[in-house]
């Protein structure tokens, strides 16, 4: 008998636009001691499966047909109170974001003891003892003391361990882990996945691991189910699915995953039903407005030279300077970006890599050091003429496509605004033409101009973002995690687009990412940042193959390996 058996599950969300079928006829089994991956892109319905098993579908979602069996007992038709006694006790769940999964104003102890006592008839001291044990098992040092602390006193990884302890505290048979490591840095991710694997084996747990990350699937799961638009496309042993996918969707999905072990020129074209955008149009950019622009010296070897760059933020302000407390975000780093190359900056969250981008662009003023960009001095107040002239040739593409476009402006205005502000065009007609061309160039039709951002998907928005950046005819483009909010298939398209644009427009790129495989695909040279220091700079292949600095070694060692 399987631990969990899902038969023909259908989940529907009625809305004013009609009934949305989030899960469509999905059948799945999980055995004891087995980790089953549930993989798919956003909107695939993978999380909904997990919620449906828990009986925690968000209103107005419901399950009109299908069966869920837990150890031979049908659980999808239980009363709310019966279902409640199964939740936590027989099925545990781990959420994506450890920062928000814990009640911020209760101690860890309270939350553990409360959960234990809800399901088990034990005294408070016994519950406490179990709680301390659990924390010990999930790898929290000094559990007897730390149990008295509040969630905010734990780091992200530690918090996720606490979440796991909470999910495990009444020894459930099945764990549903919904993107348990997505919010975590790569080094922490590896530890948490290791913990889940250990617990699964040692306790004979069944685990459903819901994730969008093929790397995590490859490293962790025994079997994998691939979902697309509510349907289960393919299911099988993990090795087999990754190396010999049967279905076209699975194939294109896997093809879009940046391989961690080698650099490829372009990602293969994804063969799903519809594309996020059209392929790059072929313009004769030589004669085009985009190709003209100011006479700009592109012959210098180092387009950008950064020396001893420093940036610090005030953590605690005070009228008296001596009472102020600062956080050093960039602690004096040196690097060069050569003309025409793609220079990567990689690091975990908080390493200061995004701050570097914002200091170069002048969004944040620097606190020391020098930045020379094609002969212009970028340091000092961004209002200085020299810096301003230099920065006209620097543009940036942002991480979050949902916040990087002003939702109240039409696409035409968004793309035209840089030209208006910098007076780059003479007539409205010319501007209109350029907007149309730019939208075509990034693979959106000219009809896009009349629409508003909310009418576009994340990938399309990122294309709009690129069009806007190009509208100042920049020579230097900073990409700050441009694809980390995107699904992997879309990511592949955007990365392809960036590569194409770089070639055609002879752009120099500063590419910032936490994602090592993406860095490996995109960059010529890479700098590794940690706590505001640049610990290592090397050619990409050299860095991945022969990392010098111990931190780089750890980073590369712990990145999920995904290779076909």
């Amino acid at each position: 008998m399987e631990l969990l058996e899902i038969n023909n599950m259908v989940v529907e969300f009625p809305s004013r636009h009609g009934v949305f079928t989030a899960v469509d006829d999905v059948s799945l089994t999980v055995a004891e001691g087995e980790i089953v991956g549930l993989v798919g892109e956003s909107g695939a319905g993978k999380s909904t499966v997990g919620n449906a098993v828990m009986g925690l579908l968000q209103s107005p979602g419901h399950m009109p047909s299908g069966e869920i069996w837990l150890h031979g007992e049908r659980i999808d038709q239980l009363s709310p109170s019966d279902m409640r006694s199964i939740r936590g006790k027989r099925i545990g769940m781990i959420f994506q974001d450890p920062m928000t999964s814990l009640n911020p104003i209760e101690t860890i102890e309270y939350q553990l003891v409360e959960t234990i006592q809800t399901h088990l008839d034990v005294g408070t001291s016994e519950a406490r003892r179990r709680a301390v044990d659990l924390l010990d098992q999930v790898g929290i040092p000094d559990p007897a003391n730390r149990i008295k602390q509040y969630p905010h006193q734990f780091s992200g990884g530690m918090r996720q361990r606490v979440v796991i302890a909470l999910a495990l505290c009444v020894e459930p048979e099945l764990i549903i882990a919904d993107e348990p490591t997505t919010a975590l840095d790569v080094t922490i991710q590896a530890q948490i996945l290791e913990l889940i694997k250990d617990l699964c084996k040692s306790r004979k747990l069944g685990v459903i691991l819901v994730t969008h990350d093929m790397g995590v699937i490859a490293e962790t799961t025994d079997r994998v189910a691939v979902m697309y638009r509510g349907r289960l496309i393919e299911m099988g042993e993990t090795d087999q699915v990754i190396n010999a996918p049967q279905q076209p969707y699975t194939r294109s999905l896997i093809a879009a995953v940046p391989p961690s072990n080698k650099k490829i020129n372009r990602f293969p074209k994804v063969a799903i039903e519809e594309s996020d955008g059209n392929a790059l149009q072929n313009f004769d950019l030589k004669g085009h407005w985009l190709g003209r622009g100011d006479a700009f010296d592109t012959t210098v070897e180092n387009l950008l030279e950064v020396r001893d760059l420093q940036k610090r933020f005030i953590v605690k302000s005070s009228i008296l300077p001596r009472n102020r407390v600062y956080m050093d975000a960039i602690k004096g780093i040196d690097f060069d970006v050569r003309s025409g190359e793609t220079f990567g900056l990689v690091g975990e969250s908080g390493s200061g890599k995004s701050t570097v981008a914002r200091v170069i662009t002048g969004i944040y003023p620097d606190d020391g050091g020098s930045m020379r960009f094609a002969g212009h001095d970028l340091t000092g107040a961004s209002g200085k003429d020299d810096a301003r002239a230099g920065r006209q040739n620097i543009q940036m593409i942002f991480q979050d496509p949902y916040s990087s476009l002003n939702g109240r402006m039409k696409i035409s205005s968004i793309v035209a605004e840089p030209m208006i502000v910098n007076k780059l065009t003479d007539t409205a007609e010319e501007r209109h033409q350029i907007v149309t061309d730019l939208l075509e160039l990034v693979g959106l039709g000219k009809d896009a101009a009349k629409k508003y951002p909310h009418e576009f998907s994340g990938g399309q928005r990122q294309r709009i973002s690129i069009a806007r950046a190009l509208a100042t005819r920049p020579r230097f483009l900073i990409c700050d995690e441009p694809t980390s909010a995107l699904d992997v298939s879309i990511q592949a398209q955007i990365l392809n687009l960036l590569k194409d644009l770089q070639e055609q427009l002879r752009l120099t790129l500063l590419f910032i990412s936490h994602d090592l495989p993406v860095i490996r695909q995109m960059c010529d040279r890479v700098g590794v940042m940690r706590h505001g220091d640049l610990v290592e700079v090397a050619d990409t292949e050299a860095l991945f193959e022969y990392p010098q600095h111990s931190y780089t070694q750890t980073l590369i060692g712990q990145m999920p390996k995904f290779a076909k």
Partner: protein
Amino acid sequence: MDSVKRAFDSDLAWSFRHSPVAILSATVALLLILAAVCAPLIAPYNPFDPASLNLMNGFSRPMEPNAFTGDSFLLGTDDQGRDVLSTILYGMRISLFVGFAAVVFAMIIGVVAGLVAAYAGGRVDAIIMRIADVQLTFPSILVAMLIFGIAKGFTPVHLRDQMAIWVLIISIGLSDWVQFARVVRGAALVEKSKEYVEAAILIGRGPIAIIFRHILPNVLSPVLVIATISLALAIIAEATLSFLGVGAPPTRPSLGTLIRIGQGYLFSGEWWILLFPSLTLLLLALSVNLLGDWLRDALNPKLGD
């Protein structure tokens, strides 16, 4: 046409069409506003023309002929012989004008202050918000009374009658701007941290353009909600100030002044002088409040179920 269709298809319009309360309250509010605007056209009398009044018509009961003059009035007359229906229509005009103008005034100050505080941050932010704190220290009624007092002192005697309305507007507006400022500041801080603002800096936009072209349109939703609720509040504040004797002059009464006059006749049996203006005020404020309520829920999709 395109934008009309877009507006009609929007979530807001959809939510409106599916909320009977919103439809009803919008209808009532619109009807009342329309009636107020068209008062000179639909009111049977002009109560603001003192020459047309006959004191002997005073205290006529609704739909009963007056004991002295034999005239009959649908909703009766007040102590000055003014037709209550006409007076309500004209009074509502004043109340609505005061309400709208006060809200616009508060909105302009509050939105600008909130935006500047949020965008500039640091010392500017601290100073603006400290001023807001001081303003909050003065309860709104008190602020209005003080401004009223001060303005009366400064206004030339023969202009006071006309000034009263503007003083009301300023005093209600001044006591109301803080909540606009706070909400806008909060919303603008969120917007400011969004990447489109950084993008605007990068393409060379100056602070003024960023504040007003980029951030402002994105913080208008909460402003709209506050403005709606403030409108109801302002209308009620006007009534309260009139009760305290610092409102619209009795010769050109607002709804609040009418209620103040009417409350003196509650025990004496002339209930209609109090009842009809009160009901009008209730309908007006309630419908605006209900609209504001709906708007708040509709514009905050997170709370939608």
